[in-house]
């Protein structure tokens, strides 16, 4: 293993931890805007530790959605971590139940992407643990800053926060619609448009939050390929 590769992996992992921390501030503020207290925001960042699901939970609650609708949205977004786990298990080969439990907690977008991109298996493991660890620290520290900083804001600041939440979702969505971030940007764009249209169309007719789940299930199933489209 060449030392330059190792130091580059470490540097990228730490940089990612810092960058993701900025999302943590936005999450803490969004949780506060949705009516969660700082303890609840911190519980999510410490225990759930998967940003998109956390944003989904507080987003649905903030929109007046029921607890089951909010939980359902978070779990739907959490399914991709299951797929990441399947890819990470042979690479990490965690020892024993405790090792597996610890590794599973750090299976997120960033740690998986860094591990997959590493040039060899040993660096892949290093990238996974260091990225997962630094993101965990940055995400939790900045969640606390956001949650405490957002409480006690006035009307104009609340209007700013109301605009921050949909923009944060858009920022999470954007890379999935571009050729740099997705293997099938065209299909992803159709799926995104379908999800947005179905959710808006259902909004007057179903309880808050439910339209989001129905939109996802409908669009994801509609996007299921016919047999002929499957790669050989």
């Amino acid at each position: 293993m060449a030392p330059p590769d190792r130091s580059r992996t470490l540097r990228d992992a730490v940089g990612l931890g810092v960058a993701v921390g900025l999302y943590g501030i936005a999450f803490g503020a969004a949780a506060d805007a949705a009516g969660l207290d700082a303890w609840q925001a911190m519980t999510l960042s410490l225990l759930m530790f998967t940003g998109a699901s956390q944003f989904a939970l507080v987003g649905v609650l903030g929109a007046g959605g029921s607890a089951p609708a909010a939980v359902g949205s978070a779990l739907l977004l959490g399914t991709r971590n299951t797929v990441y786990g399947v890819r990470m298990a042979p690479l990490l080969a965690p020892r024993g139940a405790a090792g597996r439990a610890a590794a599973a907690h750090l299976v997120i977008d960033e740690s998986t992407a860094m591990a997959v991109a590493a040039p060899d298996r040993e660096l892949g493991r290093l990238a996974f643990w260091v990225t997962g660890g630094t993101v965990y620290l940055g995400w939790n520290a900045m969640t606390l800053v956001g949650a405490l900083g957002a409480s006690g804001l006035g009307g104009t600041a609340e209007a700013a926060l109301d605009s921050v939440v949909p923009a944060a979702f858009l920022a999470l969505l954007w890379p999935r619609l571009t050729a740099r971030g997705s293997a099938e940007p065209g299909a992803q764009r159709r799926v995104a448009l379908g999800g947005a249209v179905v959710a808006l169309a259902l909004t007057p007719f179903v309880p808050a939050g439910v339209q989001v789940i129905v939109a996802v299930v409908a669009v994801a199933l509609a996007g299921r390929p016919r047999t002929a489209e499957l790669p050989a």
Partner: protein
Amino acid sequence: MSPDTLWLAVVVASVGCYLLKLAGMSVPAAWVEQPWVARVVDFVPAALLAALVAVQGLTSDDRLVVDGRLAGLAVAALALALRAPFIVVIVLAGATGAGVHVLTG
């Protein structure tokens, strides 16, 4: 929503999301690597995030509402198209929403 219900949602969703991660580390790969499963899971984030953008940006309770949030989204989209960093996107969207609030207040 009562504080207890809110806590219950926080804990149930957290434990559920953790179990989804643990399941991936534990189940036989063949269960999850069916092409159609992989494809549906690949589409879930785009559909869900787009639905959340729409609902968070354009609705209030059960109505469609156009306000500063839509202006914030438009500015955010422009910033993202110009490859601005996340924090810039967020600050611009927030400033736009605040500006519209002050102007229309």
